[in-house]
């Protein structure tokens, strides 16, 4: 055991503030270093740590979306052989939230890893219409993750009906973090048909199977 006495108070000795304060400081510094140096390796596990003392994992099986599927801005006037999804009649180019904001409560400050994945649909057919050939308008569905309103990760995204995954890492201060999962729709091309021959709105973009996972590390 560490010996931390700065000075012993003697019977009949003169009492001053330093007699007490210096002894207190010696005690405090001893406590600070006691187990860092003297605990054996691997001695600390989940049984002797408070929850979230080291890290915290935030995960949602459906990515914060109902059924893991985009449900906002959905056009119901789409063909029966197409998803109810974003069309140019309901969606415009630019970023939009994929769902409600996510709050990472109890973030203690430090490193944050995050990933968002799922499946995405894009209609690629009209990327090279008349008067739009050099260059064309590649129809990408882009993705980005915002943390407290600033960009955490961004990706050009998918151009077909395929799987996507976007991930990033950053350092953030202590406090609850607000996460926005956003998608970006490419605008329509010149002279692009926006309806089928039957008058249904052309399905342009959709996401489903959405899931996210964030890991906060503060030690």
């Amino acid at each position, binding site marked *: 055991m560490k010996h931390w006495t700065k000075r012993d108070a003697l019977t009949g000795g003169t009492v001053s503030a330093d007699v007490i304060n210096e002894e207190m400081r010696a005690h405090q510094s001893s406590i600070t270093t006691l187990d860092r140096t003297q605990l054996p390796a691997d001695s600390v596990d989940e049984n002797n740590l408070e929850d979230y003392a080291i890290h915290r994992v935030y*995960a949602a099986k459906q990515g914060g979306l109902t059924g893991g599927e985009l449900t906002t801005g959905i056009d119901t006037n789409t063909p029966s052989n197409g998803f109810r999804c974003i069309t140019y009649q309901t969606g415009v180019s630019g970023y939009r939230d994929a769902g409600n904001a996510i709050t990472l409560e109890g973030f203690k400050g430090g490193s944050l890893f995050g990933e968002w994945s799922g499946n995405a649909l894009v209609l690629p057919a009209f990327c090279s219409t008349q008067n739009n050939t050099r260059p064309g308008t590649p129809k990408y569905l882009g993705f980005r993750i915002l943390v407290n309103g600033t960009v955490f990760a961004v990706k050009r995204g998918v151009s077909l009906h395929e799987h996507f995954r976007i991930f990033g890492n950053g350092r953030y201060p202590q406090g609850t973090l607000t996460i926005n999962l956003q998608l970006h729709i490419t605008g329509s091309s010149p*002279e692009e048909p926006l309806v089928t021959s039957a008058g249904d709105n052309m399905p342009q973009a959709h996401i489903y199977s959405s*899931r996210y996972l964030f890991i906060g590390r503060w030690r």
Partner: protein
Amino acid sequence: MSRITRAPVNEGDAIAAADLNDRFADYTQSGSVVAGINGFNLRDAAVDLPQMQKDFLCQAVYEATLGEFDLDHSSVNTVNAATGVPSAGHLVQDFSGTTSVLSFGGSGKAITAADVLRLYWDLSVNPKYTGTPWTAAASFSDYVMDKTGGSTAQLATSATVWVIYPEWDITSNSLGNFVPVPGQGDFDTNYTGSRRGEALSTCQATCVIPAWVQIAQNTTGGLVTAAGLLANVIGWRGVSGAWHYVGSDGAVTVFGIRWRIKGVLHPEQTSSVNYLGFDTGASTNVSLEYTSGKAQALVMRVK
């Protein structure tokens, strides 16, 4: 950093026995949770990574090869599109027909309420087709568009896909009871008429792979041109998928995970619900080649 909260003694302060005793009690173990030698100072604030259990954050990692490696694709596995439903699909396997299984060992791995299972996989695939399967009479993989000069044209939606999804065995290490993971269906749900597939809400572990692509070049005034309909194969590409199981949804012991491929499927809506349904009408000369990939599973503590 350890912490003791009490103002220091200043010159001129009166010093009483009780006051001194309180101060020393801050630093001792004498019967109070507020004493300095407490959980916070000696545990939370005093330990760091050298004292941490090695597998505290990530308890276990498992990895397996899916399929079989062949760099120049001289050998491949081929999955033909389903011509009828229900379709059993195809288990990802090596060139000898042995199913690729991500094993969690003879005792399995318990996923408790304090854990999360992170599952990732990738596979090298080559969707193939000949002709224009989306124009087959029974197919619904096309949109009918107005065409220049009158009449209409069938435009591939380019939304037709293959699906790959994981199945796990949580019963025993004999690995004889694989079922789709929670939130994932087997695409055999009969949702209308003779159609089978899954609602998107039960595709939570699905990775979709595009079957083909067609663009309508030089579309003018909202009308497609017959000469502008240019279709192409997707070609060899790497696809990847991910899925997470949060242990708070129910503790399980996982013994193994395997992957199943089905196709081809296409978007459809019935009773205001979005589905991926088999398009057996677009199955002629449609196949998916694949070689190899990797699967990884990580079991992490969530707190």
